[in-house]
């Protein structure tokens, strides 16, 4: 039973996101099935919020980005139909990440973000206490990506974190790490080359 005011922490109904389920979800979204949208929100919200929160360091703004992501996703679901290559979750995450980057660039609060980053980075990532990883579709993808990131040399990992997960530009990273701009570019190029190889097994994921 769920009593009024105690709706927090509802877990997604499904425990996986298989290719078949993703394909069915896509078809239902294209057909404007609102229950498919509700299902999609349950499945993907933790990941989209995670991406936005990592970049914006602001819970309220992150939620706003994700709400916008679902609005855009619902509007543009029709464009997903034609392409087998367009996977639902990466597509949504790309929208969310792009919205977060746009906001970052618009608000020009990098200095504040850097300060926050130092604090959170030094303290290590905060683990959400009530997140049941077994019930979270996509958890093993998260673990695989983490493993790939951990295998990077520390200087490359730090650069990728700042560029990809914190949304800083090359010149901002150079300034923050006090290294030449060319070094930032080299580190990123080497890191992305390694990550492309390491993430290959995920190409055909879901499950």
């Amino acid at each position: 039973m769920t009593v009024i005011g105690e709706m927090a922490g509802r877990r997604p109904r499904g425990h996986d996101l298989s290719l078949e389920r993703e394909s069915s979800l896509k078809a239902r979204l294209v057909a404007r099935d609102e229950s498919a949208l509700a299902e999609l929100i349950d499945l993907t919200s933790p990941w989209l919020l995670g991406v936005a929160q990592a970049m914006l360091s602001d819970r309220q703004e992150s939620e706003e980005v994700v709400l916008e992501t679902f609005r855009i996703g619902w509007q543009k679901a029709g464009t997903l139909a034609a392409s087998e290559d367009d996977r639902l979750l990466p597509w949504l995450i790309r929208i969310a990440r792009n919205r977060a980057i746009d906001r970052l660039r618009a608000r020009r609060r990098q200095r504040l973000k850097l300060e926050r980053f130092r604090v959170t980075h030094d303290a290590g990532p905060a683990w959400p206490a009530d997140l049941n990883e077994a019930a979270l579709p996509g958890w093993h993808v998260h673990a695989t990506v983490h493993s790939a990131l951990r295998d990077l040399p520390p200087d490359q990992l730090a650069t990728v974190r700042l560029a990809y997960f914190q949304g800083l530009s090359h010149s901002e990273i150079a300034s923050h790490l006090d290294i030449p701009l060319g070094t930032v570019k080299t580190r990123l190029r080497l890191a992305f080359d390694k990550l492309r190889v390491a993430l290959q097994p995920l190409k055909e994921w879901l499950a």
Partner: protein
Amino acid sequence: MTAHQWFIEHRADLATRTLDPGDESKFRDHLSRCEECRVAVAGLERELAWLPMGAEPVVPPPGFRHQALDRALGTHRSAWRIPLGLAAAAVMAAGGGLWWRGQARETRLASELVRSRQAFAALSDTVAVLRRAARVLHASVAMNDHQGSLVIFADNITHRWNVVFQGLPPAPAGEKYQFWFICADGMVRSAELRPSDDGTLMLTVDMPGQAGAVLGAVLSMETTTSVGNAPKGVQLAHLLL
């Protein structure tokens, strides 16, 4: 380095949107004219598509699903929401006014704001079920000298029911009001209903995920020790979808 070599070397940066805004703009302009780069960048985007999953997941706040549904579906705010919105705004305004009165008070108010926001979101989430209800069922319920009613709002999108229970006395000692789902494969025990002093209760229950399609509901009076998936006491209401 040739001009095109620069673009080749920065393809991954564009695919991951890690270029400086000026360089990104320059590259996008180039992309509109260069098929080779366009194909290469699209391939890189696919190869690195799962990279964002390296971010730690975040638990959505209460009511987030309904906020997202409302935003995506462009649902209009209806009249009942206005007082709720004003109430939340008032709480936030009060918080804003007191913000400057000291660090301790600031922290306390910030917490209150968060709680108010969560309570408001949870209330919106619950009331959204009423608004979205695909079916509304009503039954009169007689209990001793009292005449009450049971109203069910069935939301087929989120698979939840809001149950409103009015005008019934507290259950006699040793007994309880028990709510049941009638499913295709049998009865499924749901919540125990405990009306407040004025005989009202409103709660949200998830529709059972097993036992087949939900066909209706039953309200019965059971002993407090009753167990199992079949009503044994007096059936006070019986509703079919």
